[in-house]
C-alpha cells in the first residue's frame, strides 16, 4: 500500500488547519506524528479517512483518490473518536456488532481479539462498567480486528497502565511485521521513539519535517 498526500490544505472558518501537506507513506512502516495539542495531528487523520474534505489537494492510496473515487475505506483500521459503542452492551457484543457491519460473524475470533488485547476476562462485562484503560483497549481492538491494511491510531496509549502499554506496543510491532502501514499520533515521546521508523513533527497544521526523539 502506498499512501500519498499531495498539496493538501484545509481551511475551517478562516483558519488554516492543514497547510500544504505532502507525504508519501509505504506499507511495512510505522510513521509517527508528534506535536502539541491542536497542532493538526488528529485533523490530518480526519483528512486521511475523509471525515473532512480538502480545500485543495488530494489523498491517494495506490493511485486511487480518496476524495473523488469512492475508495473502499473499510481497509482502514481507525482509532480516532468513540467508535459508536453501546454502553449497555458487553465488550464482546460491541465488537461483534462492528464486525457484523460487513456481514462477518466469528465469535471465536472476537474472543481471541479480546484476549490478545488483555480484555479476555472482561468480555462479558458491560462497556459502561469498563475503566478508562479498558475502554481504550476496546477501541484499539476494534481498530485492528479486521486485518486492515492501513492502521491509524490517535493517541493509542492514552489512559493505559504500563503493562497495557507493553501489550499495545507488541501488537503494533506484530502488525508491522504483517506489512501493514501504521500511522500513530502521540505526544508521548516513548511511544513514538520505540515504535516508529519515521517521526514527523506537526505544528500549526504544517509538517515541519522529520525529527529524532
Amino acid at each position, binding site marked *: 500500500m502506498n499512501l500519498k498526500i499531495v498539496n493538501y490544505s484545509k481551511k*475551517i472558518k478562516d*483558519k488554516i*488547519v492543514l497547510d500544504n501537506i505532502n507525504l508519501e507513506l509505504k506499507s511495512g512502516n510505522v510513521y509517527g506524528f508528534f506535536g502539541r*495539542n*491542536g*497542532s*493538526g*495531528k*488528529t*485533523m490530518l487523520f*480526519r483528512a486521511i*479517512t*475523509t*471525515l*473532512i*474534505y480538502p480545500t485543495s489537494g488530494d489523498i491517494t492510496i495506490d493511485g486511487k483518490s480518496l476524495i473523488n473515487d*469512492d*475508495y*473502499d*475505506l*473499510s481497509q*482502514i483500521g*481507525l482509532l480516532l*473518536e468513540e*467508535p*459508536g459503542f*453501546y454502553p*449497555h*452492551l458487553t465488550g464482546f*457484543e460491541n465488537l*461483534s*456488532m*462492528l464486525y*457484523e*457491519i*460487513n456481514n462477518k460473524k466469528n465469535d471465536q475470533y472476537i474472543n481471541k481479539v479480546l484476549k490478545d488485547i488483555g480484555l479476555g476476562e472482561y468480555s462479558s462485562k458491560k462497556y459502561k462498567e469498563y475503566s478508562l484503560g479498558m475502554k481504550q483497549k476496546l477501541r484499539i481492538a476494534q481498530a485492528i480486528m*479486521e486485518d486492515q491494511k492501513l492502521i491509524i491510531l490517535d493517541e493509542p496509549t492514552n489512559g493505559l497502565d504500563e503493562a497495557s502499554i507493553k501489550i499495545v506496543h507488541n501488537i503494533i510491532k506484530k502488525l508491522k511485521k504483517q506489512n501493514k502501514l501504521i500511522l500513530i499520533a502521540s505526544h508521548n515521546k516513548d511511544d513514538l521513539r520505540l515504535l516508529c521508523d519515521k517521526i514527523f513533527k506537526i505544528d500549526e497544521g504544517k509538517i515541519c519535517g522529520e525529527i529524532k526523539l
Partner: protein
Amino acid sequence: MTYMKKIDIKKIIIYILVIIIICFLKKNYIYSIGNGEESFIKDILVYWKDNQVVNIIWFLPIIYEIFVISKKYFYKLNYFDVRSKNRRKYIKKVLISFMIESFCFIFLLELSQLVIINFLIPNTIRINIDGLVFILKYVIENIFLIVEIIFVALLIKKLMYSIILILILNFLILISSMNLSLISTQIYIPFVNIYFESGSSLITMLIILIGIIMIKKIYLKYDIGGME
C-alpha cells in the same frame, strides 16, 4: 447478534411512560366524542381550541418524536464508521433507515395513543379508509418536520437550535393560520395542513423527497467533527 440487543430497555420504558402520560392528559380534554370515528381519531391526534396550554399537550408527542428521531439521525450523520466503505454508501444506508424508522416510530406513537385513549374512553374505533388516510397524512407531515430539522441542523451544525427554529417557525405559521384565517383550502402548507384537512400530502411528500436529496448533497461535502 440480533437487532433487539441494540435496544435499550430504559428507552422503551421512557417511551411507554411518555405515551401513557400524554394519553391521560389528552383524555381530559377530548370533548367531541361521539361525532363519528374519524373525528375521534382526529381529536386524539390533532386538536386546536382557544386554550393554548391545552393545545401544547397535543404538541408533546410531536416534540417527543421529532426530538428522538432527529437526535438519533443527526448523531448518525456526525458519525461515520470507515467500515461503511465510503460516504456515498453510508448516507444511502442512513437515509433508507431514517425513512423506515421515522415512519414506523410515528405510526406506532399514533397507534399507541389511539389504543390507550380508546381504552380510557371506551369508544370503539374501527379504522376505515378515511381514518387510515388521516393517520398516514399525520405521519407524513411529521416526517416533514424531522427532515426540515435535520436539513437545517446540517447547515448550522447545531441540532438544538435547528429544533427550536423549525418548531417556532411551524407553530407560528399554524397560529397565524388559525387566528387570522390565512389558510384556505386553496393554499397547502405542510404540517399546518393536518389541522385543516384540505388536500392530500403529495406536496409534503415532494418536499420530503427534495429535502432528502439536499441532505444527501450536503452530507457528501460535510466535514464530520470540528476543530481539534
